[in-house]
């Protein structure tokens, strides 16, 4: 179970980075970066998970007996998501301006343009 859980993290991260390296479109590149970044979200939540655990929300507890999962990791994942959204927004804005200046979103042809 551990191997699968942590394997997903490594796989998602590497697949995301591969997408960034091999990308032919800046918007595709930004999405790949989000994929790589989501690996960190999953890792945080997995570190905080406890088998049979319930969410760290203590409302109507009799229905959800058992231990609570790690609330600190969930708070960190929330921070991660917000920072990820900020980075994605900034990169997409850059992509808009690159397309206006260079007329292309392909990072490979972008290198040849001079302005």
């Amino acid at each position, binding site marked *: 179970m551990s191997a699968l859980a942590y394997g997903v993290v490594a796989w998602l991260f*590497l697949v995301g980075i591969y997408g960034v390296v091999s990308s032919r479109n800046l918007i595709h590149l930004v999405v790949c970066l989000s994929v790589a970044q989501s690996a960190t979200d999953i890792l945080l939540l997995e570190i905080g998970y406890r088998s049979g655990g319930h969410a760290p929300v203590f409302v109507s507890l009799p229905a959800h007996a058992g231990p609570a999962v*790690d*609330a600190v990791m969930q708070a960190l994942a929330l921070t991660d998501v917000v920072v990820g959204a900020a980075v994605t927004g900034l990169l997409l804005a850059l992509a808009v301006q690159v397309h206006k200046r260079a007329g292309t979103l392909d990072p490979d042809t972008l290198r040849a343009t001079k302005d």
Partner: protein
Amino acid sequence: MSRRARLAFFTVAAAALAVTLGVGLGGLPSFGSQISAYARMLNGLAQSQRHVTDVVSAISFDYRGIDTLFEEFILLSAVAGISVLLRPLSDETRELPADKAPDRSIPPPSPAVWLLAVFLSSLLVLIGIETVTHGQLTPGGGFQGGVILASAIYVVYLGTNYVTVERFQPAPLLEASDGVGASGYVFIGLLGLLVGASFLSNVVGLGVAGNLISGGTIPLLNLVVGVEVAAGFAILASEFLDQTAVIRTRRR
């Protein structure tokens, strides 16, 4: 570097990274076996100490409130950065699409889409406010609720047109709310200093756990964060929308 050379380089680097990741992840405690002592302590204490039922909110906005302050500032600077990046450049001008064909009016959306937009946007506003205000009780809070509130504006755009949606998002009001939301967090933190405690200490009456008004400063901080996030994401929506709708190259 050619494409093939880059991929070859990546393969070597990725293999090394995979090994490192494997060793690092392999050293973690097995999945689902335990949580940190810190988290166990907070799970046990938060309810009695801070009178909240959602421990995640208590951690975000109280125990580790200073982290969230910086997180909020990251979001504020990102929104400011995007506004700067997407401003009309020196060879561009703002021009409404209708100006180009004054004899033709923009066709209105179909009544079905309009009705759906009215229904959905009011529902989104309601759920957004509910998520912001119940952050200390159930999963949710300022960040999540703020995004839901901002998405109501996207739905309004879907069902109407650019001119109508501009009325829903006056730029000065949005920018002011963004700033007020971000600085409000600091001011609520300063309340702690005013009564002689430390910055961001929970000095407001805690109320009864499980009630809507409980948790002291936690719902207040959720509220200012909700205002900031909603305004920030609405600014983002309007900046990207402006790029396609009104910002054009100046004709010479």
